[in-house]
């Protein structure tokens, strides 16, 4: 089926929309982080996913397509005082393999991702980390400091997740807006750095010198 481009209103221009993905394992604090900076109570949104599953009744173990529902969080904030009026959308999404289809949708045109890590369940961060690495989407790792949990040094987490030195690893309290805003700022700077080193996306200063 041919998809049509929706009709556009010609009246007042809307603020530019930017999106950031917050990924992490179950209980890593994704909803908490979204809530800390969002202007609305985070909304839990559902979407259908089609996934291959092995039919247990079949002796041949045939793969069948099954439609399941997954939920992700949505939050937003407006930045009317930015040089250009902006609205930032935050998508909080679980870290399992079965969410990959949704991650593609969320990552398209996104600023980048924050992978929120609970050091007690470090293994749940591997899937999102390798997904964003493979996709080439800028991401930062934020260690959520839970009360009473052992505090690992960011470099220990970097080693455990086999992250290159270029990926920022920060520690934060997902409940604290100043911490989450700091993690967002770290991601934005990282994305700028990525964009300027990407030959397909030169920094504006380069194009000015060339002109």
């Amino acid at each position, binding site marked *: 089926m041919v998809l049509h481009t929706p009709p556009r209103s010609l009246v007042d*221009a809307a603020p530019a929309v*930017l999106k950031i993905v917050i990924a992490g394992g179950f209980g890593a604090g994704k909803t908490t982080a979204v809530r800390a900076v969002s202007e609305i109570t985070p909304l839990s949104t559902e979407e259908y996913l089609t996934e291959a599953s092995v039919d247990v009744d079949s002796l041949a173990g045939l793969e069948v397509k099954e439609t399941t529902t997954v939920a992700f969080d949505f939050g937003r904030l407006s930045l009317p005082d*930015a040089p250009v009026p902006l609205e930032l959308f935050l998508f909080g999404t679980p870290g399992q393999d079965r969410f990959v289809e949704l991650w593609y949708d969320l990552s398209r045109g996104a600023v980048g991702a924050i992978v929120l890590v609970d050091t007690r369940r470090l293994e749940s961060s591997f899937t999102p980390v390798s997904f964003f690495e493979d996709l080439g989407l800028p991401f930062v790792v934020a260690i959520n400091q839970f009360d009473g949990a052992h505090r690992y040094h960011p470099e220990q987490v970097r080693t455990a997740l086999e992250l290159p030195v270029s990926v920022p690893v920060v520690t934060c309290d997902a409940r604290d807006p100043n911490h989450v805003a700091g993690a967002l*700022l770290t991601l*934005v700077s990282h994305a700028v750095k990525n*964009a300027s080193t*990407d030959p*397909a*996306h030169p920094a504006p200063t380069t194009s000015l010198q060339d002109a």
Partner: protein
Amino acid sequence: MSAHGHAAEESTFVRTYTLTRGRTRPRYLLGLETVLDAGQGRPGPAQPEECEEIFALCRERRRSVTELAGRLRRPVTVVKVLVSDLLDVDALVVPLTHPYADTDAECGPSTQLLAALSAGLKRKWPDAIAYPQAG
């Protein structure tokens, strides 16, 4: 939505299916982050009450497809089908965004837009934790 067992779940599914009259694909190319404004048209009497809800929400302010789905507690695909119907009757329109907003789907937002985001975040949270930069 409180679940009353399997039967309730099934009836929700049937209701959802009826809502879109069996359609599983929206007619328009809509992203999770596509924002919608109320237009000059109105939802038709034959359209489900959810269309009225969507229209009312967009009349209050601009809303994204994801936000509408979250508020209606309906799956995103279902909401996209309903939004397509509302676009057809001009009850909804996709607002023209700022020219700077032309984000390249492959490369991501422009460096100008990223710089604006950084400045906007710093203004909103002047006490944001400044983390040392890696690499």
